[in-house]
């Protein structure tokens, strides 16, 4: 059974006079431990697909099964809970809560899950050490570089022990060195925790490092290269 199974997903936005077909009958599946990039020009539907995979948006038709569980048509409260327990997110920028420290940001997810204080503190420390920020636990986001903030975001995404992590253009705001460093770390997490990473990107540096590249254009599935 695939980790994520996307079946005949279509997404149409009808809020404007001319309907926008963001996704047209997309079928794809993802396995455990994948390190996959979804690429395509602007407007190709990458972010829409990622949002649907993450339960942040509902498809117009089709279904998404995660671990065999159909998340399409789930009630919102159930979806929120599902995201909390099974999906990690890394966004393009400003991922973190500015008034919390690095360790508090990572702990926050576990707090939402109801994890005990001692356990979440220990786990947060370990994860931040894994992403190379053992010495920046008490730093606030404003005291961290862009790359460091993204590392904390990855640690937070992993804190909830998700089935997979969705990263929407995580390197868009980073310089080359930070990008390389971030990707190194994510590959390491991919190997260490057998964590599936699915990126939406048009950063060539990310595409180079991906183990699998899925290309979308005009909402349609174009290519799937291993």
């Amino acid at each position, binding site marked *: 059974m695939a980790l994520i199974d996307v079946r005949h997903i279509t997404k149409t936005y009808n809020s404007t006079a001319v309907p926008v077909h963001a996704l047209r009958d997309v079928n794809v599946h993802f396995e455990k431990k994948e390190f996959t990039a979804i690429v395509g020009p602007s407007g190709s539907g990458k972010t829409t697909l990622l949002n649907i995979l993450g339960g942040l948006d509902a498809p117009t038709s089709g279904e998404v099964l995660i671990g065999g569980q159909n998340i399409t048509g789930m009630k919102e409260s159930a979806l929120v*809970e599902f995201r909390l327990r099974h999906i990690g*997110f890394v*966004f393009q920028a400003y991922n973190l809560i500015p*008034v919390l420290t690095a360790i508090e940001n990572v*702990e926050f997810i576990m707090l939402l899950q109801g994890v005990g204080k001692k356990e979440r503190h220990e786990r947060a420390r370990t994860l931040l050490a894994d992403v190379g920020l053992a010495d920046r636990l008490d730093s606030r986001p404003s005291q961290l570089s862009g790359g460091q903030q993204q590392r904390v975001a990855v640690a937070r995404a992993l804190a909830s022990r998700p089935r997979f992590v969705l990263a929407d253009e995580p390197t868009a705001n980073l310089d080359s060195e930070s990008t390389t460093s971030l990707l190194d770390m994510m590959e390491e997490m991919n190997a260490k925790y057998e964590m599936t990473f699915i990126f939406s990107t048009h950063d060539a540096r990310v595409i180079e490092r991906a183990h699998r590249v899925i290309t979308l254009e005009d909402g349609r599935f174009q290519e799937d290269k291993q």
Partner: protein
Amino acid sequence: MLFLLAWRNVWRNVKRSTIIIVSIALGLAGGLFAGAVMMGMGESMINSAIDRNLGHLQIHSPAYRRDALVSNYIRSPQKVLSLLDTLGSVKAYSARTLLEGMASSANSSYGVTITGVDPERERETTALVSMLVAGNFLADKYRTQAVIGKKLAERLGLKLKSKIILTFQDRSGEIVYMAARIVGLFKTESTAFDEMTVFVRQKDVTRLLGARKPLIHEIAIRLKNSSTLPATKARLASGFSDLKVEEWREIAPELAFMSTSVESFTYLFVAIIIFALIFGITNTMLMAVMERIHELGILMAVGMKRGRVFIMILMETLLLSFVGGMLGMLIGGAAIAWFNHFGIDLSAFAQGLEGFGSGTTLYPYLPGVMYAALTVMIVVAANISALMPAWKAVRLKPAQAVRVY
């Protein structure tokens, strides 16, 4: 951690939060102080009246309360006085003869209440002696003597040692004339009282009324502590069911009305201030939410339920309002305590205040229960303020919100 998050979010924009907190604090402090001044004024009027002649309790015959005739006197006053002598709550009492009549001089005449008193008893029961501006309180050598208000003296063109003619009716309705020497002039906070009250020795009017014993129309009672009023009243009422035992509120209902209405008005005044502040707080929190759309989107995307987001915004608003409210109560309370101790000198407005029967030094005060009530009002107002911003926050769609920068 939600509380910690809310607290830190309040201080994200230090300038903005400080401005709104200071606004709340100053608004509330101003309202509290204004209310305390009004209550102090009301309290001053009540205390002045009690000190002047009202006392805490008064006893009359029911007939006298209906019709202030000479013949409606208390039939067995000694029994009442004997009981009063035994009550520990009673500081002093004065048994008075009250006669409606006229005060005349060569120039003019004026309607007055002629009050026949035992000077010693009256001295212990009221503070009138301390309000003498000239002379003494019926302690002179003259055969018949009177103490009148300075305002009345001016009206009649009289002064200390002048002769005043008092006219009243006896029990049979015959007109009685009493020529008295003015031995004292008083000036109280009440112009009306000063114009309409004449004090004479009880034995003098008793003689002129042709009575063997003083005719007692009124017994004014001063308590050691006003908190014993209900119990003392009940004791007297049960002991003398044929007499009318009334507390100052019943004798002077206009004072009682003013006391309760000032308290109500203070609540209303502060409620209006808090209501106005709601808009300021709502606006501040709306700005805080609109600035954080992306962040709120991320929180909901990673798994924070809308209910928790709502509570977080609610907490931020409550904290903001609470800090401002507590600061306001602290500032207001300190100002009230300071001026309650030292008083506010309003002698520049003496004439106007005398028309109300209020003293010229005000001691603002606010009952403790009002601070508790205000805390509740602030919490309620904060919750109302939080509704719109919190609703705005939970209505966000995470997928759209995370793309707002």
